[in-house]
């Protein structure tokens, strides 16, 4: 059957996780490929988590957090922007397509936006095909 990407989604407890909850209570339907991992703030998401996801078999990584300025901890998401910007350059050198890692701001009231972000991202990763970088390894 067709390739179904496995995507890890990092959701910040105060905004995007609550936004995903709202999408749930509003029964908004979206694709099931993103597996949420809850963190207290998008600032907790380290680039090594993203690398670990790919090493552990993920095809895409979605990082979500509060809109800049709305962070429950005031500045957490600013650090995320900084790390994301440098990580993107490194991933490019690692030959990881730009569309495989995405940073999106979803507030606690944007249930519909969360669903849209997930669907869009899954479609993009699906188009890129499986990551399996680790398979073409030694020989």
């Amino acid at each position, binding site marked *: 059957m067709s390739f179904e990407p496995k995507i890890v989604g990092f959701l910040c407890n*105060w905004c995007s996780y609550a936004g995903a909850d709202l999408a749930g209570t509003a029964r908004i339907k979206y694709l099931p490929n993103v597996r949420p991992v809850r963190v207290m*703030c998008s*600032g907790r998401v*380290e680039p090594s988590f993203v690398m670990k996801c790919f090493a552990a*078999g993920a095809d895409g990584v979605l990082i979500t957090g509060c809109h800049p300025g709305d962070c*429950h*901890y005031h500045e957490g998401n600013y*650090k995320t922007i900084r790390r994301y910007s440098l990580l993107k350059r490194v991933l490019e050198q690692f030959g990881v397509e730009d569309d495989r890692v995405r940073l999106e701001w979803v507030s606690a009231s*944007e249930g519909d936006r969360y669903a849209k972000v997930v669907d869009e991202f899954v479609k993009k990763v699906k188009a890129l095909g499986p990551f399996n970088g680790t398979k073409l390894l030694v020989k």
Partner: protein
Amino acid sequence: MVSITINDKPYQVEESSTILKACQKAGIDIPTLCHHERVKPTTVCGLCIVEVKREKEGKEESSLATSCNSNVKEGMKIYTDSDRTKERRKKAVERLIARAPEVPILRHLAEEYNISIPAEGEGCILCGLCVNMCEEVVGQVVFRFEGKGEERHLTAESDRCIACGACATICPTGYIHMDDIKERKIVHSELLLGPKSSIYVTSMQAVPNKPVINPETCIHFRTGKCGICSQVCEREAIDYEMKEEEIEVEVGNILLAPGFHPFNPEAMAQFGYGTLPNVLTSLEFEWLNCAAGPTGGEVLLENGEKPKAVALLHCVGSRDENFHEYCSRVCCMYALKFAHLIKEKTDAEVYNFYIDLRCFGKGYEEFYKRLLKEGVRFVRGKTGEITFPIYEEEKGKLVVRCEDTLVGRIRRIPVDMAVLCCALEPPEDAEALGRLFGVSRSKDGFFMERHPKLAPVSTSTDGVFIAGAAQGPKDIPDTVAQASAAASQVMSLIMKGEVELDAAISQIIPELCSGCRICNNLCPYTAISYDPNEKLSSINPVLCKGCGTCAAACPSEAIIAQFFTEDQIVSEIEGVLI
């Protein structure tokens, strides 16, 4: 003190006083036009002429003097109504009325001295009050006299004008007047909704009931001059140097109740607010109704007459795709209240233009039934626009065009006054407050409660509560209920006396910390400090909120974000990728 006689009655008067002031103190009325106690006398109009008799070298001399600028002297005999005085005054009135026939005092004197009043005149009597006022009090020197004799006239450098209105108020003939920027009649100009001067008491029930100065309009703050209010205040309570001072307080809980901000209906041009006369917002209509208000509670049109028909427009800006989708919840009920008040105070026809009448509260529906009996007309249909009269019977009225969905026709209803029930918007500084106190906002911009059903007055930040319209439009009973709910939640926290801090915070392991200080600037709560002699950074557990940003940055993994450690998250990643 000096002893003098006025109209042959003896008086004791202070030396420095002018004749005019002495007579006024004695209760004798002397007409004046170009006199103002805050400005140097210009002695141009001549109305304040009096006859003065004095002993000089044994002979009694009589002379005429302008009382506004002549001082009293010992033994002076003043006659305010002698023939000589009246004759000179008559000449002065003739000269002045020719130039400014509308001035009430001149018309009154003209009748007294039966002088004919010309149809119209130049208006300016060259009294120079505006020149002195603008120079001495306001300090902007906008006006000057130019030309000699017949050509003498007033000129103004308008770019220096700060629109403080002092010249307009002092001009005795009304020659100088204030215009609205859009050159339209200010709604209720006579009624002047809002404070008249820069120093005012906000309302009769103001707490604290003290006057305040509006620095934007106060001349002293703008030009450094004037200061009349401090001169007249006997208690010398006015101190212009008062500055805002920052007070630091330590609190355990915070309640945000900044209320709402009324929607500005100018954005809906079709209702003509700001362009058509007698179109008011609900708060303006409230102020009109208020006994302490400009009309003493009477419902009056701009021209001062009672309206014969009033339209109350519901859902202005609410339940509207282009503005606010939400229902502002309170407008239906206060519109009914307005209808009742109008019926009570005038015998006007009242039309309520509504979509759905939301009388949901206790005693609300009964109040609505009462209004039906009082003959209020309810038109089921949101108003399309308020427009100009076309047909004969609409002459001089505002025409409300709406689709009456129950009748299924477009109707044109002429009214004298329209009240717009504007939407309740989030407070203007909601975004700043939200950021400051870590409270997120729902899609419509109001503060976001922790849970719509289970925690309506608390927020996702412990110790920060919200109540009232800032959390969402609501009426007074609901607001009071929420306020008490929030107060009780705060009280229960206070009575508990202590709170358990979530243990999911970060910690630095000294054995692994190399003192590289990468984490030091990352903490928004300044929980991370560096000890130079130990060469170690450490986290203050009470300040740390557990966001984990420092743990993500620590290059030696010396910071453990408890309950969200690297191992836990990495293993969860492996787990979800089965």
